[in-house]
């Protein structure tokens, strides 16, 4: 296999939240231009891993390297804004919507280079509207009043309103209607065409199957399996062991 160069690597990352030891030496590589799925049960540490990459929790030991340069870990902790400015966009688990601001303002903030909405690339905005029509409809609405799924759309839209090298997305499909999940899958595929790398946490195995190139499975703060998605899809026993998943239920 011709291994693409990794965009992001985590080596021996240990993260503590307060006095709790949450990540116990996470090892992870995210190849450029691919979708890497991060799977695992509730509480395995997926969200913590993404937050550690973003610098929202400090990695106490280990190394996090992005595009060849260290961004986190012992000794080289960049601040979150600096990490984001290197080209990483993040869709958090709780969506991180600015409820007091309108949909428009939420997107405007996400488009860092734009001073006003007119500065945002119109074609890209249209593309987002085609993926998530609700956003056009509720353009001037306070985002806090959106429905759960609409908030999720807005959160994803914010991450893709400008091109970024790496997307970290935490469970984007939760609360989305099937049709919108389809749109999302389509959108991520399109982004892959433009050499955008994606690290995706997902419980929806159908979506993982549809998108994933490589996969990492976490358990108890460690990455316990790394491989290609295809391999995991083939191997029902592996699924059962890693995810407690029986294919029967998911046909």
């Amino acid at each position, binding site marked *: 296999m011709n291994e693409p160069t990794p965009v992001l690597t985590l080596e021996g990352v240990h993260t503590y939240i307060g006095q709790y030891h949450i990540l116990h030496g996470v090892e992870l590589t995210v190849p450029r231009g691919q979708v890497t799925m991060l799977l695992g049960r509730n509480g395995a540490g997926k969200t913590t891993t993404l937050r550690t990459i*973003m610098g*929202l929790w400090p990695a106490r030991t280990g190394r996090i390297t992005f595009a060849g340069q260290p961004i986190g870990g012992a000794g080289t902790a960049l*601040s*979150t*804004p600096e990490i*984001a*400015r290197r080209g990483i*966009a*993040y869709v*958090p688990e709780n969506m*991180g*919507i*600015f*409820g*007091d*601001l*309108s949909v*428009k*303002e*939420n997107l*405007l*903030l*996400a488009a*860092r280079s734009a*001073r*006003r*909405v*007119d500065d945002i690339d*119109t074609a890209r*905005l*249209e593309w987002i*509207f085609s993926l998530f029509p609700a956003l*056009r*409809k*509720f*353009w*001037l*609405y*306070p985002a*806090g009043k959106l429905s759960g799924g609409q908030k999720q759309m807005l959160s994803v839209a*914010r991450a893709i309103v400008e091109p970024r090298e790496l997307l970290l997305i935490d469970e984007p499909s939760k609360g989305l209607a099937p049709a919108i999940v389809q749109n999302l899958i389509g959108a991520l595929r399109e982004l892959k065409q433009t050499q955008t790398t994606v690290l995706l946490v997902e419980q929806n195995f159908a979506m993982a199957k549809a998108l994933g190139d490589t996969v990492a499975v976490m358990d108890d703060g460690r990455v316990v399996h790394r491989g290609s998605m295809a391999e995991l899809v083939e191997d029902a026993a592996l699924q059962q062991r890693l995810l407690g998943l029986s294919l029967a239920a998911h046909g």
Partner: protein
Amino acid sequence: MNTVTSPLPAAEVALAKVRLDWIPLLLVAALMAVALPLVGSVPTWLTLTVAGLAMGMIIFVIASGLTLVFGLMDVLNFGHGVFIALGAFVATTVLAGMADWTGSASLAANLIAIFAAMGVAMAVTGAIGYAFERVLVRPVYGQHLKQILITMGGMIIGEEMIKVIWGPEQTPLPLPEALRGALLWGDAAVEKYRVLAVAIGSAVLLAMLYLLNRTKIGLLIRAGVQDLEMVESLGYRVRRLFVGVFVAGSALAGLGGVMWGLYQQMVTPQMGAQINVLLFIVIIIGGLGSSFGCLVGALLVGLMANYTGFLAPKVALFSNIGLMVAILLWRPNGLYPVAAR
């Protein structure tokens, strides 16, 4: 107050756009109109009204920093008062040093002295505000209660420091020659200093409205208050902006302090604490955080004080509270509610 239209027609639904709400302004006008027959004499009414509006402007400047910091950063700065006193004390020093300018009968020289005092006061209070934010406020963002306590602690410390530097006694801050006295329109009198206050107040208002509504800064800070981590994840160094806002708020307090001190013509270390409650009433009426609301609230308070003071001085004691209760009964979140937190 977001009036910029979408670049893409939001064709399907016409959703609530926020437009300037004129009703509270009408309320100000109505108050003035009701007062006229009650007061009876037109020149007296004019004197009271103009003085009230000007007083409103002064209060607005003093309160604007408070409302800015609260509205944008959701920080309840009980220490605001100490910046007011500090600004005023700095002005006493500056003006004492410029005795030739203030003593001159030329308006220009007087104004230069005052503006210099304001400039220095804003610089000093801004700098102290920076330290205040760094040391006291930063660790307690998002925790109202601790903010109240910490900023109160800061207030006590600041007040005592003022006593260490300038002494505990009241210090005179005389108004320069050319700004004393009144302009006469027939039988109505308008103090000259109040005209200056209106000018400065308007300038502050315009600057604030521009900065908050025409730039991304206002948005960023509001977003940062709701979810700091998310704004940082979008790549903004929003903490720096926070400091900036706090510095601006403190500098505005300093400016207000100079204006207040010159108005009172004397300053005391407690002067800030003394008007704290009044300021809080003003920003509650305005809607806790809206700069325009703060202006309207201040004007109402200024007018109300003069009308009730003239018509029924006993009532004046409780006029501010009465006004506040009435307004909250009508609009429970103030005149210009900033989206509910």
